[in-house]
């Protein structure tokens, strides 16, 4: 194992995140997964949208594209299509991925393009200071839901699995070992992988919903989560941790490469 700091841009510190933010924990898991696989850091590109979580690539030593809100996946799709040799990793927030970027998410799953996406789900729009997102549980409070959120939430694993992703898992900032393992398996999968990292935002979600400070929120995740059992998906009652999809299907850029070869375009 390399020193994880070797993957970081230490000169970019201090970071912009609040005390107690879960983003650093998720980055740590991602770095350890990259390290465990020995990915060539020269051939690995990080792509993100806009949000607190999307600032992560700015602290990591890779080629990185910090794009527009919700659009990380189509930028990443262009990178992967134009140069399929590259490992392409997308880091996104729950609003970035599931609201403004929701359409791109289902189409990336459908294509099964070889991109690994880590969605940091802190249940809220952090960067814009606490409005509800498609992952804010019903009944919770947000700056745009002071009477309680009446929206229902997406279950990202079900959404991505149904849309065709070939590796889908969920862990949390409490379940760090699983998180690293799932990201690692996502990176190994030749196809679209979505790993949801349930995270905490003490500043905007925790405080308004009286969930306490960061340690209290970690505890809250611990007490409210359960391991996935085949067929049981009570995501609206509990945080279901586990692997939901792990299968093989044709990968998009490989299929295109085969088309090029068939037409003699590789000569």
């Amino acid at each position, binding site marked *: 194992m390399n020193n994880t700091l070797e993957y970081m841009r230490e000169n970019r510190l201090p970071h912009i995140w609040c005390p107690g933010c879960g983003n650093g924990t998720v980055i740590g898991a991602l770095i350890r997964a990259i390290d465990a696989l020995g990915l060539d850091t020269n051939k690995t590109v990080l792509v993100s949208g806009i949000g607190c979580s999307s600032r992560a690539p700015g602290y990591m030593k*890779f080629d990185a594209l*910090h794009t527009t809100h919700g659009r990380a996946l189509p930028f990443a799709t*262009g990178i992967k299509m*134009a140069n399929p040799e590259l490992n392409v990793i997308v880091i996104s927030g729950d609003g970035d991925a599931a609201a403004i970027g929701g359409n791109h998410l289902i189409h990336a799953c459908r294509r099964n393009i070889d991109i690994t996406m880590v969605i940091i789900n802190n249940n809220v729009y952090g960067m814009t200071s606490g409005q509800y997102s498609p992952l804010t549980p019903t009944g919770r409070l947000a700056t745009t839901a002071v009477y309680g959120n009446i929206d229902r939430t997406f279950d990202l694993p079900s959404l991505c699995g149904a849309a065709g992703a070939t590796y889908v898992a969920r862990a949390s900032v409490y379940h760090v070992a699983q998180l690293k393992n799932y990201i690692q398996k996502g990176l190994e999968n030749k196809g679209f992988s979505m790993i949801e990292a349930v995270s905490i935002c003490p500043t905007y979600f925790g405080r308004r919903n009286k969930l306490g400070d960061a340690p209290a929120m970690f505890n809250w995740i611990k007490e409210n989560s359960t391991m996935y059992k085949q067929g049981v998906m009570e995501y609206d009652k509990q945080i279901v941790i586990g692997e939901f999809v792990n299968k093989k299907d044709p990968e998009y850029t490989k299929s295109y490469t085969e088309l090029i070869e068939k037409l003699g375009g590789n000569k």
Partner: protein
Amino acid sequence: MSEEKVLFLQGNEACVLGALRAGMRFFAGYPITPSSEIAEISSIELPKVGGRFIQMEDEIASMAAVIGASMTGVKAMTATSGPGFSLKQENIGFACMAEVPVVVVSIMRMGPSTGLPTSPAQGDLMQARWGTHGDHPAICLIPSSVKEMYEFTIRAFNLSEKYRTPVILMTDEVIAHMREGVKLQENYEIIERKRPAPGAFNYQPFLDIDGDGVPPMAPYGEGYKFHVTGLSHDENGFATNSPEKNEKLLKRLKYKVDKDAEEIATYSEYLMEDAEYVLVALGSVSRTAQNVARQLRANGVKAGLFTPKTLWPFPEAALKRHLSAAKLVIVPELNLGQLVLEVERIVKGSCEVKLIAKASGELFKTDELYNQVAGVIGE
């Protein structure tokens, strides 16, 4: 001696052939009339030459994908029309800010909104300049023939590579869909983006080392490990809130195109030497206006035609030079008055400027335009 070969091509087809000639190896798009042939032909031709085509889920995604592809060092293009051009705007701004060379083709149809999908119009001229928010450089080429569709597409790639900026190739439905015999040259100059020295891994991706406002651009995947953002950034590509660095960046982005504006700006002139009545028209309207100018001359009126071939930057100095004998400038256009605003700004009261506007979704016919121009001159 350059040899010439003649092809019979549709405008959109010529665009794709020009793009391939320029080295396009990636196309992302979403179908929309009257631009769809560009996607269709790209999907047929690209894999044959080892390039890649993808039909994305919408125009926002298409714009994002071509920027992503260009970051790997590949020449990339997208094509769209009206509603799709509107959707692309945010990411066009990203390409301006992150300085990513890409070509965006926009075939104008009647708007606003879904408008008249198959009818010609020229209502997006200002959108090509100011469609995305914030101060930003803009280069927009306007072909008015099938041959120009071919050659201007090559030029669009060349300019985008040279200036590290998105370039818009815009014309109206008529030029995109008509067919003409095209004589192509054997040789066209092809420009490639500047790159940092191989192995210069401490390279600063937004440092203007050459003083021309255009920093060299590395491709992803070669070890440079550089960061690119749409946030205001420093020379290393990292977000900054520094007022000085922000202003320096925005001024450089403007400077890199502005300093060469007169070289980038092109135009054509017809019977302009001693013209007292100057028609200014672009795209398909310039073809009708040429007939009108010729007929007016035949009838003893000293008329001429000035056709901008780049809309942005506008051939400002050239137009001024051609107005020495002008009594009246007449601007016919397929909208309710957009080109005329730029012409008025340049003419600045040195003579009168009259607009002939048409927004019915139809072309000007020669007789119709002749009568309107003659009417305006007679006033």
